[in-house]
């Protein structure tokens, strides 16, 4: 975990494009907000491997957003439940339910549907916000942080040595 955190910090501090890290966070959000072992998550993991995004950011993002998901899950499930019970959408759900392919996607699971909807809606804002924050971090916060005494102390720590070895 420490090495993964070190890799994330390296990515944040390195020349990796902010978009690559931000996209990793965005994809991680969808995985975290829906039950882990679902076909769409397998597809997202495949995307994470294929697309040139930061994998450390992706996996750390899953861990971080899973904490968030613990609070959001009841609302996600309620959203999914209401959508699945919505009379206007009933015909669509019924048609999809007749297909093994769609049923394999677990679309009729309240948490999967609700979590996926919230995740998809949040993908773009999270991408943009992450990108902005990474830029801010690199240009302002990192310089300011390096000047702090606590940063000096941290640089003398074991974790920094680990980070440094990875960075090198």
């Amino acid at each position: 975990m420490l090495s993964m955190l070190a890799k994330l910090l390296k990515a944040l501090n390195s020349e990796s494009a902010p978009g690559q890290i931000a996209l990793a966070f965005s994809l991680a959000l969808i995985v975290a907000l829906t039950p882990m072992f679902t076909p769409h998550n397998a597809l997202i993991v495949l995307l994470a491997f294929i697309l040139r995004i930061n994998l450390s950011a992706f996996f750390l993002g899953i861990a971080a957003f899973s904490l968030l998901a613990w609070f959001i899950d009841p609302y996600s499930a309620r959203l999914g439940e209401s959508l699945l019970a919505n009379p206007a959408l009933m015909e669509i759900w019924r048609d999809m339910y007749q297909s093994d392919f769609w049923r394999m996607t677990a679309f009729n699971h309240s948490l999967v549907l609700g979590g996926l909807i919230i995740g998809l809606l949040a993908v773009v804002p999270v991408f943009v916000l992450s990108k902005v924050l990474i830029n801010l971090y690199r240009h302002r916060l990192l310089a300011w942080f390096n000047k702090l005494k606590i940063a000096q102390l941290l640089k003398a720590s074991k974790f920094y040595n680990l980070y440094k070895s990875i960075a090198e």
Partner: protein
Amino acid sequence: MKQWIRWSGLAAFIAVSLILAVVFLLVAGPLIEKGIETFGSDAAEAKVEVDSVSLSFSPLGFAIHGLTVADSRNPMSNVLQLDKATAQLELAPLFLGKAIIRDLSVDNLQFNTARSTSGALEKAAEQEEAVAEPRAEKDQSSSVLNSVELPSVDDILAREPLRTEQAGNAFQQSYSNHKKAVDDALGKVPDDQALKAYEQELKALTSGSFQSLDDFKARKKKLDELKARFKQDKAAITTAKNALADARNDISDNLKALKAAPGEDLENIRNKYQLSAGGAANMSALLFGEQAGEWSEKALYWYEKVKPYLAKDEAGTATEEDSPKAPRDGRFVHFPSDNPWPGFLLRNAQLTASTASGNMLINAQDITSEPAVLGRPMRIHINGSGLKQVEDLSADIVLDHRKTPGTDTLTLNIKDWQLRDMNLGVAGASLASSLVQVQALAVVSQGKLNAQGDAQFVRTQFSSQGKTTVARELGLALAKVQQFDVNAKASGNITAPEFSLGSDLDKQLNAAFGARLSEKQAQLEAKLQTKLEQKLQSYIGDYAGKLGEFNQLEGSLERRLNKVSELAGQNLEDYQAQKEREAREKAELEQAKAKARLDAEKAAAKADAERKKKEAEEKAKEKLKKLF
């Protein structure tokens, strides 16, 4: 675009996926094996063992080799054992963690096979040791019942709840309670000595004149205290009288009930154990009750094993459907479909079971953990055509838990069952041979069982090995029976249903027994009456005499109450009144004295005049004498 694609990532993904797949393939078999053993043992409450589990990909499925399920009630035997079970799985539902078995075929399914090692679970074995003693007692009691030929007087009295015993206990309890209450009340009542003491004390206070006003006040105070005690004593006597009256009434009522109880017991027992006409239901229950009970017990035992899973489904479905809020882990919402995917579904299972009577074909359909999702009831059909002793056996089990409450139905038909050497367990009688047709229907809903079964016995031959008179009589009577019907009913709570067994065998037996059994009945009743009378006397004992004591006590209390009332009625004279009375008495005394003195003087004067008169007369007489 190129800078966004990482083709090496695809290779990494495939590599990771392959590693995961290989790991899964390596551990899946042992995991399934462990899962079957762990969850199976929990469900069966005995060891469930699997030799091995192998996976197959075309078709997708797995095979279980060498499965044994030990009998929790008899750990040295297996409830069932099979050589191989092959299951074909559907792929798509597996991605959602749903196990849908398209086909399950089982080879060489056997029941009640012997084990070389105990199949008891360690925890269960410990518990078994703990309950070994009570069970031994139970076994002993059942063996005692088995050895009973026909109920003896002592057996009947021991088996039946007797009104005499209840009334006797109530009587004794009532006597001891009231005796204590009466004794306590009597303890507060003054005895004869106390009454005498009161009398003397009262006399001392009320007699003699007051010396002074203080003397009067002192006496008055003492008298008031005495009267307060009289009041308390009167209350105590009244309480004691009431307690005595209550005791006498209650004990009399209980005694009356106790005296009537042997008659009621005899009437009840006569109706239930009548060996003459009309008592045949009891006879058929005696003859077939044990066997029917054994079968019912087995059926209910296995139903109880399965029931928690059925009930769990019901509870789960109800919770999911009725819950207004979505659970935090979400749930699958199902829509109408010809092919729903519940969490677990066994679409079709074909089992060939080897039994001592021959092979049975078991076909199960739609066995699922979520019947409401599937929308069809679970069905199990057992067919045993061409069995050794049965021409055709057909059992249909329908477990319908789509809605709450669920309904489970069993329909059983047995055609031409050649029954041989069925030990009836009574008076050494056995059914040597018979051809039997059986039809039964059992329905369980909301924990209530409602079952009815009919069996027609034809070409019957009984044999009797009994040596006793009753056994011989029974043997002779049974020998004349060619055919009979038995009908059984069970209803009530599934855990403790009430069974009743009837048969026209009873009428036939009654006709055969005829007058001989009436005679036996009369003897039995006479013995019963004697025993019940003995029981009555043992309860009444000397209590009747003690009731007389209560009557005497009541008279004594009445006398004491009168005495205390009389004593309490006496008052102290008023001081002023006493002084006036004394003055009046003194004046009267003086008047009397003066009158007496006057009277005495008058009398003296009169006597003197008389004397003088007499002297004058004497003198006159003397003069007259001298003249002549």
